[in-house]
């Protein structure tokens, strides 16, 4: 009996992939690679060590490389001899990180014939944003080798965090939080959401006026524009692919419902009319259908409906208290309260498919990457927050702890 119970426990654990527990498959099938830093510039910049670790981290997070974590220095020039101990690798990534911290040159050398397979230079304006040098380089190397795209790595994440009662801040960061910068502070500013796929603008809700007010901030011009206000609450939950329609949760008469807002005309239409809670609208597929959270059966759960239709379908096939969701194409992510734990599940709105993604602790605010291949989420441990990532295709996962603050909402 004990053996049977142990077997069951082990089996259930294997069904879930958590940030602290990863199963790596097909290690032999991954490309072997070592790094070699240019001797002439090595150690000359402030972020020299961090650059090495970022390159290693990005290569591992891609799920396509078996990376040698030994730091080495050598000749950066083309055709120079490679150290003998690297001859059994498939590739050597030579890199030269400038003393200013704003330039990175890379050469991907194929080991067996010592030829440069790919090379490129990257620059940034200020050294503090050095992580984007590494992220862009690894995205390009991955692309050059023909692997599945990992362009999500070079996107900015946008999040709000509480710093004290009635006080929050909005930050942008790279996915590892190695670069993070406060962009809105003072008062209460919540629910930031990128306004388009280019990340050239964002929406957020300000509580610094008498009523919750939605603003749009253009990152290029710095202009902010008031969109609308609503009594009760106001959240921009999703933005259509073309950026022209928003799904808002509003409560003009004290009743939280989902509205579709047309950016150009300023017109809006109410999509849900249930007398309880309908929130967190997310476009599905061709954007004629939405997923959303509702308490229409007494507890929060995930439902779908076609825009303009009155009928509603339950979408989450697991859990009885599911208060947060995200959507990509026909797939949904949702958080499930399970006793003291909150876990994240992946499901399909067209079938009963369910896949647990976390297995313990408090895991909230799941978000798909723009290509649907990676899941971002927040893992809470007491007052500590970490941003976690799970690569759905490769099972690679990682947690990045935050130094302070409670994350309120996040987008990328």
């Amino acid at each position, binding site marked *: 009996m004990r053996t049977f119970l142990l077997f069951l426990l082990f089996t259930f654990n294997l069904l879930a992939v958590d940030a602290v527990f990863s199963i790596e498959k097909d290690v032999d099938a991954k490309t072997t690679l070592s790094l070699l830093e240019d001797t002439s510039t090595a150690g000359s910049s402030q972020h020299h060590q961090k650059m090495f670790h970022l390159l290693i981290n990005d290569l591992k997070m891609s799920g396509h490389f078996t990376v040698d974590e030994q730091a080495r220095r050598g000749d950066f020039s083309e055709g120079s001899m490679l150290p003998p101990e690297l001859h059994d690798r498939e590739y050597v990534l030579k890199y030269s990180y400038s003393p200013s911290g704003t330039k990175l040159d890379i050469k991907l050398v194929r080991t067996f014939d010592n030829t440069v397979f790919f090379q490129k230079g*990257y620059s940034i304006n*200020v050294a503090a944003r050095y992580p984007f040098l590494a992220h862009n380089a690894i995205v390009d190397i991955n692309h050059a080798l023909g692997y599945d795209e990992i362009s999500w790595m070079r996107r900015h994440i946008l999040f709000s965090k509480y710093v004290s009662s009635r006080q929050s801040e909005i930050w942008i960061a790279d996915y590892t939080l190695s670069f993070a910068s406060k962009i809105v*502070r003072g*008062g209460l500013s*919540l*629910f930031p959401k990128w306004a388009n796929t280019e*990340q050239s603008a964002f929406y957020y809700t300000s509580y610094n006026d008498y009523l919750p007010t939605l603003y749009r901030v253009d990152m290029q011009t710095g202009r902010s524009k008031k969109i609308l206000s609503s009594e009760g*609450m106001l959240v921009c939950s999703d933005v259509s692919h073309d950026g022209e329609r928003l799904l808002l949760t509003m409560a003009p008469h004290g009743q939280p419902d989902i509205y579709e807002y047309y950016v150009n005309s300023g017109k809006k239409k109410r999509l849900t009319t249930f007398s309880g809670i309908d929130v967190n609208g997310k476009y599905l597929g061709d954007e004629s259908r939405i997923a959303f959270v509702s308490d229409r059966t007494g507890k929060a759960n995930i439902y779908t409906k076609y825009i303009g239709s009155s009928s509603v379908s339950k979408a989450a096939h697991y859990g009885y208290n599911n208060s947060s969701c995200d959507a990509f194409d026909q797939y949904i992510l949702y958080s499930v309260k399970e006793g003291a734990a909150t876990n994240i599940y992946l499901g399909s709105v067209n079938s009963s498919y369910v896949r647990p993604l976390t297995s313990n602790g408090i895991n909230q605010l799941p978000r798909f990457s723009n290509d649907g291949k990676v899941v971002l989420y927040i893992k809470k441990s007491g*007052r500590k927050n970490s941003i976690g990532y799970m690569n759905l295709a490769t099972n690679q996962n990682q947690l990045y702890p935050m130094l302070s603050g409670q994350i*309120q909402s996040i987008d990328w």
Partner: protein
Amino acid sequence: MKKELMMTLLLVALFTGCASKKVDTLDITDGTATSQGMTEGTEVRGYQNVDPYGSENHGNVDYNQDMGYGEANGGVKNIYFAVDQYVITPEKLPTVINNANILQQAIKAGSRVKIEGHCDATGTDEYNYALGLRRAKAAKDAIVIRGVKPSAITIVSMGESAPACTSSYSEACFAKNRRVEFKIVN
């Protein structure tokens, strides 16, 4: 208006840098991408600029922290709720009657009432804000039934953003945060 102007000016300064500088854009049409419109003096041939937000650091977007209304609650009491609930239970009736009487007098004297719905920190999503809103709405309905003028009341959900108790991460503390507060706005 002042706040909006301040924010706009600061953001313009932050994201675009000095007036003589341009914001970066990328040209990634081929493998030898170059940057366009880069900050004057920093353009480097043969390098793809991967930094879309100009040369200045982000930050310093400050708000006036005045929430825009004064508070003088004069004997009005909070109403507390069970986990995930937004129904005002019968034992809360004395509090509702007490609050309705005080608020009615305040409105007659020319004040407005703002009802804030609050939640504990076990949820941080939109649903939590909707829960806070439903609590505020339930409180509004309860005092309106007792004669308070509905047009003088505004309801807002504060979600988990304004905890009354921050001393521990316990149920006892959370219970103090699942509440409705009544603000008399002068």
